[in-house]
């Protein structure tokens, strides 16, 4: 975990209001696990003062390049999208613990479920799983066709099913509809996306390991300010809470109470 200036080598739209950002620097070599994230300082300005947490979508350790995918929404991400090649971005990371993949064996079948801008961290996860010989199936949910991204990239790594809420692409409906439809046999499931999606997955939890990556508004992103806590489901837990930034962002289903 370091705070470093990284060189922007690409920052361009890949779908409606969705940008792919590539930055280069030493920090890339510190990444330990898929699902980790970075905390990006948007400018030298007090406007959009807080950093923005964005998942690591891909890492190229040879060229020291990190890829992130983000949606322009509020002030900070809009300003980030105006950042151009050659500029330096101050980035803190890698943060959090990411998706556990140590226990998954070669030949096993993993299902990766992503919703919207929850999709990006699954890409590096899938690449890592592939390296281990784990077979990955991707289920990617989006609102509508225009904002679908990385379908081809995921297809290279394993089958990728797309669902759109309005039916403009793939299955009409949610990722859970694809899951029902296909009734996969699998060994482990990883998910990242909006809370309702994660809740639906947790509810249909079938005994196989399920890992959920959460979002929370953050202050420090390093575990010091307690902005990002979730209560544990286990009321006898000695702390009673987990910090999304430093204990997460990935939790085993059942560990924490999903926020609403």
């Amino acid at each position, binding site marked *: 975990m370091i705070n470093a200036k990284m060189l922007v080598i690409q920052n361009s739209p890949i779908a409606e209001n969705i940008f792919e950002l590539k930055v280069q620097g030493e920090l890339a070599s510190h990444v330990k696990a898929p699902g980790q994230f970075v905390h990006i300082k948007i400018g030298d300005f*007090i406007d959009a003062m*807080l950093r923005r947490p964005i998942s690591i979508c891909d890492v190229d350790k040879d060229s020291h390049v990190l890829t992130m995918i983000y949606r322009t929404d509020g002030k900070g991400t809009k300003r980030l999208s105006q950042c151009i090649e050659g500029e330096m971005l101050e980035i803190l990371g890698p943060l959090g613990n990411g998706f556990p993949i140590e226990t998954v064996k070669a030949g096993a079948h993993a299902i990766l479920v992503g919703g919207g801008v929850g999709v990006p961290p699954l890409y590096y996860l899938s690449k890592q799983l592939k390296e281990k010989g784990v077979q990955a199936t991707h289920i990617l949910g989006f609102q509508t066709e225009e904002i679908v991204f990385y379908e081809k990239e995921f297809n290279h790594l394993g089958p990728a099913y797309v669902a759109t809420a309005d039916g403009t692409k793939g299955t009409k409906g949610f990722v859970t509809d694809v899951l029902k439809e296909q009734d996969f046999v699998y060994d482990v499931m990883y998910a990242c996306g909006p809370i309702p999606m994660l809740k639906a997955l947790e509810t249909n939890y079938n005994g196989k390991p399920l890992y959920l990556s959460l979002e929370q*508004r953050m*202050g420090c992103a390093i575990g010091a300010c307690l902005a990002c806590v979730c209560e544990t489901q286990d009321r006898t837990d000695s702390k*009673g809470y987990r910090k999304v930034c430093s204990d997460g962002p990935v939790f085993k289903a059942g560990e924490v109470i999903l926020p609403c």
Partner: protein
Amino acid sequence: MLNVSLPGLNMKNPVMPASGCFAFGREFNNFYDLNELGAIAIKAATKEARFGNPTPRVAETPGGMLNAIGLQNPGVDKIISEELEWLKSFETPIIANIAGSQIEDYVYTAEQLSKHSRVSALELNISCPNVKEGGIAFGTVPEIAADLTEKVKAVSEVPVYVKLSPNVSDIIAMAKAVEEAGADGLSMINTLLGMRIDLKTGQPILANKMGGLSGPAIKPIAIRMIYEASQHVNIPIIGMGGIENADDVVEFFLAGASAVAVGTANFIDPLCCPKIISALPDKLKEMNVNHINDLKGRSWRSCQKTSSSR
């Protein structure tokens, strides 16, 4: 040229992280050696453990942020057994921040903490705006603040700093009241009560609805209050509110502070405290100042001189 000496606190430089923005230092110790700091104000302790408020607990505002953490902490006993124990491996003076909703809680917590060898001073948080029960009156009514100060002073083995709330009409009255009640120093300012509403939901962004406003946005208010209070009390002031860099530290000293604390800026740059500390000597040289103490209250000391020579 940077060492400052305040009741209970021998600091090699005047910069400390502000309470609640640094937990107990573990996370920042990954970035730098905590011994580089002048002191550390640790997260507020309460008698019992507290989970705090529901999330979202923070929101961004123009030039600042709101927080409503709600004093989450593991309780004074665990802070002593785990956090202060861990802090024993450093030499930096520790200021233990204390909160509560009743006088008895403050007194209990103060007594426990002040006995600990690692605790150099107490800081009474009489002003946390994010807690429902009680609390507010401690920070806004001079007599109540004075009463609390007196009772804590009676049990404390170390100097007591009272952390004032800016949500008052008359900061001078608050400062004088706690000085008379025996406070050894003041910390100011805590956050201003603020709110943001999410346009998408129509609801306050913070689950707690209101939160404390911190960051550069509140700096002019902090400067004004320190300028006012420092002219009316004889106890030193730890200044805070929006400090980001060495220039800000100088401005707080000019206003009348004897040391400073850095809160929100730690989130923007985890290395900000050591960066500020290392920038200070050059800044002082640039200003032809031999010691940072020489800047203390200069903005009003010179005025006084002028007016008395008229």
